[in-house]
């Protein structure tokens, strides 16, 4: 008998037994020992001023408002041999969440093919990392569309950018689309609720959930089949880009992608977020990203 069949039988028996005699109740579980640390997210993009998200992690069962997790009192610098950029707090208004999102912003656009050093002074700790801004960009060949494809999350529509891999080096890619959405559309599985949008629309940046590498595809045409975050309307335009990531950024988002699956699927073994560039004091990445030229995509019906 196949494992899938055994699994389905097991699930069926468990659900049947639970429905007949089971009892579900909230319980309190002792909080495991935990030392708070920082999460740092920063991808330098040539030609763009640096943007860095800095949050603190919290014990799992602590009651907190996620808006309180942003670390405001950090001192952050990003430097090359030529200059030092002292980052300051900035914010954008997220019309979907109806709240301000805070981040640290630099002043000088990132220069390509440079080595950059990051220093974060926070909570009495100094966290450092380095990256190079020497990533190439790809050119999108074409954009395809399928009204149905199946991945490990289920069946979805899919947007499919085609492009050629950069040969003879390890590359990592991700998809993004910029477009307008309004409250008549769905976000993930639910209706898009946002009193801040009103009857109008808002520009959103959708970043693909999965990251890809070019193992066994060096120099070949690649395609990324992406589930859009929002539902679409016929004729709606979107600007699609393919991001080239460095390895540290790829590794971090690859872990997030796998862990997200484990959070929603009880049959998936947990993914531990490993200490990366920052050691045990912080999670995250300080890397580089480039974006292809945008290609216009019109949603078909």
């Amino acid at each position: 008998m196949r494992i899938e069949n055994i699994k389905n039988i097991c699930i069926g028996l468990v659900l049947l037994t639970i429905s007949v005699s089971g009892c579900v109740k909230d319980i309190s579980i002792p909080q495991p020992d935990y030392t708070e640390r920082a999460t740092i997210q920063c991808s330098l993009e040539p030609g763009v001023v640096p943007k860095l998200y800095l949050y603190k992690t919290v014990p799992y069962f602590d009651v907190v408002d996620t808006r309180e997790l942003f670390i405001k009192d950090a001192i952050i610098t990003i430097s090359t041999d030529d200059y030092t950029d002292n980052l300051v707090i900035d914010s954008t208004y997220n019309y979907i969440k109806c709240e301000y999102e805070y981040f640290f912003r630099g002043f000088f656009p990132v220069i390509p093919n440079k080595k950059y050093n990051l220093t974060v002074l926070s909570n009495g700790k100094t966290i450092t990392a380095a990256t190079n801004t020497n990533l190439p960009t790809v050119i999108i060949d074409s954009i395809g569309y399928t009204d149905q494809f199946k991945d490990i999350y289920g069946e979805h529509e899919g947007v499919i950018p085609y492009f050629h891999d950069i040969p003879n080096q390890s590359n990592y890619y991700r998809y993004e689309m910029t477009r307008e959405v309004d409250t008549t559309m769905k976000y993930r599985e639910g209706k898009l609720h946002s009193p801040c949008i009103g009857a109008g629309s808002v520009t959103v940046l959708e970043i693909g959930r999965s990251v890809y590498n070019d193992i066994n595809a060096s120099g070949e045409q690649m395609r990324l089949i992406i589930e859009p975050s929002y539902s679409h309307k016929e004729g709606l335009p979107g600007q699609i880009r393919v991001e080239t990531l460095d390895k540290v950024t790829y590794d971090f988002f690859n872990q997030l992608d796998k862990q997200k699956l484990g959070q929603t699927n009880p049959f998936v073994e947990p993914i531990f977020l490993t200490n990366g560039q920052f050691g045990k004091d912080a999670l995250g990445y300080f890397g580089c990203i480039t974006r292809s030229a945008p290609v216009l995509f019109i949603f078909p019906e």
Partner: protein
Amino acid sequence: MAYYISDELKMTDLLSVTYGLHIPVFFSGNKTYAFTEPRIIVKFSLNPVTSIKASYTQMNQFMHLVPNSTASLPTDIWLTSNAKIKPQNSTQYAIGLFKNFKNNEIETSVELYYKNMNNQVLFKEGTQIDLNTNLDAALAFGDGKSYGIEFFVKKNYGKLTGWASYTLSKTTQKFPDLNYGKEFPFTYDRRHNLSIAGSYELTKTWSFSADFTFYSGIAFTLPAGRAFINDDGSLYDGIYYDYTSRNNSRLRPYNRLDIGFSNVKKVKRFGKSCQREWAFGAYNVYSRQNPYFVYLTTDPTTKQPQAKQVSLLPIIPSISYNFKF
């Protein structure tokens, strides 16, 4: 297929040695495993009712229990050994003191043991078993150890008979590819395990019996921290789990009392002497909600994590009729 030879050698009136060799042979596809497993038990009698036993045992096992480490559905999988999955092997050392009282009416023992285990198997982080899973690539291999002390007492005769056992033990595993290479508790590591079973003869026909079980909850992996990730409103946005160690939390302890009354009578049916028995019982008599599994969820209003426990089988009364002829 297995071969086994054993012999008992009485060295003196007080000292005896039982030694043997077990040779299991296991075929799996093109791969054949054969082992020699020596075992020896040395018994030293201190007096007619007291003895000390020490043993050394090597064992191999060709089935591997691969438990899930999440707090969710208990979906353990058994795998057989093959070319990639080597048989588990263990070496166990034990020493015990055995003493009887009241003309062997009461038996008691206390035993210490230590066991080393190799070629243990678990799933790698992030493994999702489905139809297309290459199991060989999804497995991680490591070692384990277990040690503990067992107490046992048994009453053989009289109106009241029964036994009680208590084990204090610890079982851990260590895998290079899991838990940052650090040691962690085995899923079924149970620190305390207590069982009491008794039967009391109320009258010549009626008897009462009770079984009580208590053991520590199994281990599962609970996130220790939450990490908030924000990436321009993308699908990555959200709360992620910061795990610090594997199997770092426990289900609540399990305990249960079962009771039963039995009425046995000799009767005549169809001209023959027969025995009939009415049995009245109750499983989980105080209807304890023992944990079956725990899962984590997020409160839709407060957006805070919650743990939910699923329990099965409350009190279940039973009645049965047995007829022997």
